[in-house]
């Protein structure tokens, strides 16, 4: 069974008191269509990336999965539980970490904040203390455990948000830019932790949204590109890159410093042939570099296509 199943999901934000405003001849805005017919599944233990521009619908989608917003149509199930009908059960199965700093109590310490949320999750004080201690160690937050949230650095606040998402040991994690405010080393450690969560037993399923496309590419088994509320493509990062262009540039540096560059199609034999030729001639190969399309190229192309003909690539 999929950990997260999204079927024909749509969400249109209604305009509050539309008829009343029209009656009083006040300007009436059009309802905002945030999601249209979104469908995909995320397997247990998969790290699934969701990329798109600001306002593309990522946050709405995440909030619907988190039961904070009700969809207009379609359904979301988490481990078989419907996010509308069985919302309380779904919340037991998920942890959400956002980059929103205001979601904590600023005058409470890091430890007190987590203890409050642990109690709401129904953990006993003893279990909560052990869990918090473990998470502080894992996320390198021990030094700031007794410090008020308002006094923490932005990076530590973000790590505390991830710690809170992990408090109840949820089988599904929704991570919204978990490394945005972290320094490069801390970000690398966070990525490592995310990867280990997906590989542990039992594995954690992760829905990951980020604007750091290199990070998405590194972490995610599959990526969905969302644009103007619609899923434009879902595939592995490698296959998505292949969708934009079938070719890549190869640069081979040989022992005398000379650089041989050529273009090849994905999976053709040209690279093998070139290497064999060079080896046959007794040339030592120092380095091989390839210039492939990135997820940014893919995203840009989908965006461009969306605004011109409204279709695919």
């Amino acid at each position, binding site marked *: 069974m999929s950990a997260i199943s999204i079927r024909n999901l749509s969400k249109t934000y209604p305009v509050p008191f539309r008829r009343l405003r029209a009656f009083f001849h006040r300007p009436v805005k059009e309802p905002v269509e945030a999601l249209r017919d979104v469908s995909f599944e995320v397997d247990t233990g998969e790290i699934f990336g969701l990329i798109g521009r600001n306002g593309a619908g990522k946050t709405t989608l995440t909030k619907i999965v988190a039961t904070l917003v*009700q969809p207009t149509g379609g359904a979301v199930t988490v481990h078989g539980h419907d996010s509308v009908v069985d919302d*309380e*059960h779904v919340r037991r199965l998920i942890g*959400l970490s956002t980059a929103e700093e205001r979601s904590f109590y600023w005058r409470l310490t890091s430890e007190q904040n987590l203890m409050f949320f642990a*109690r*709401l999750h*129904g953990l006993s004080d003893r279990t909560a203390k052990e869990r918090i201690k473990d998470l502080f160690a894992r996320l390198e937050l021990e030094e700031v455990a007794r410090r008020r949230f308002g006094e923490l650095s932005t990076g530590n606040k973000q790590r505390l948000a991830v710690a809170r998402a992990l408090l109840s040991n949820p089988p599904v994690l929704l991570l919204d830019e978990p490394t945005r405010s972290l320094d490069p080393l801390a970000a690398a450690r966070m990525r490592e932790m995310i990867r280990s969560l997906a590989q542990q037993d039992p594995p954690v399923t992760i829905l990951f949204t980020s604007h750091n496309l290199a990070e998405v590419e590194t972490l995610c088994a599959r990526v969905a590109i969302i644009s103007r509320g619609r899923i434009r493509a879902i595939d592995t990062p490698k296959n998505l890159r292949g969708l934009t262009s079938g070719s890549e540039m190869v640069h081979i540096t040989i022992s005398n410093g000379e650089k041989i560059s050529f273009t090849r199609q994905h999976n053709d034999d040209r690279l093998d042939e070139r290497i064999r030729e060079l080896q046959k001639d007794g040339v030592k190969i120092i380095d091989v570099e390839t210039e492939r399309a990135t997820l940014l190229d893919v995203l840009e192309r989908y965006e461009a296509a969306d605004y011109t003909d409204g279709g695919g690539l």
Partner: protein
Amino acid sequence: MNALRLLPRRIFAFVARDFRLFVSYRMQFLLRIISILAVVTTLFFISKIFAGFTDPQFSQWRDPLATWLTGLAVLNYFMTGFSSLANSIRQEQMQGTLESVLLTPINLPTVIVASSAWDFLETTFFSFLYLFFGRVFFGVEYRGSFFLAVVFLLLTTVVLACLGILSASFAMVFKRGDPFGIFLGAGSALFSGVFFPTQLLQTHAGPTLGSISLILPATHGLQGIRQVLIEGHGLAQVTQPLFTLLGFLVVLLPFSLWVFGRAVRRAKREGSLIQY
């Protein structure tokens, strides 16, 4: 069933959180105690002006200090019953913490009830201080059944909490501009007989304004509590305010819960639950 089992634990979580937030502002706590003492002292001296002048028809006002202190203590409590539910939602919305609270396996009614629990504890303490300072420093006598007074206090608080649920529903949909808050907040002190007998409204402001006091649950609650604590009446003599309050409860409880359910659904549909 599970939610019911976990309810005390969740209420404790909110109370512990709010206690910690409360003690992080120690000065405010101290100043509030001093201000209550100042109010009680001021009322003591004002009450001396009226000593011996009370009209026999206002039997509850023979000792004005006792009447004012019960009025203030009880009004304090009633206002908490009414306003804390809406305030708990509004405060979490403004702090930005409502979303993270709602992400835990807890439903919105539980959030509202649990997050106002500390307000009730705090108000109980400060309301008690009015009576305590009156008794200890100014020799105010209370007689009658404290148990019956507490029954009135709880019943009126629950009735006002129903209005509080309506107010919270407004806070969820309209965010601000709650008509119940304006009416009850400004109206209770004036119309429910906290500082002067409600009969005076009839006499001096006319029957229309005078009858406003009759539709306020706080008027009947206060009347009952004073009849018990100041006049020493028993259950048989306070049936009128008791049944009036029960009537309010029978009408308001199902209505407020129905409105609240609709407000939650609407806010979730609009995606505006966490906005303020």
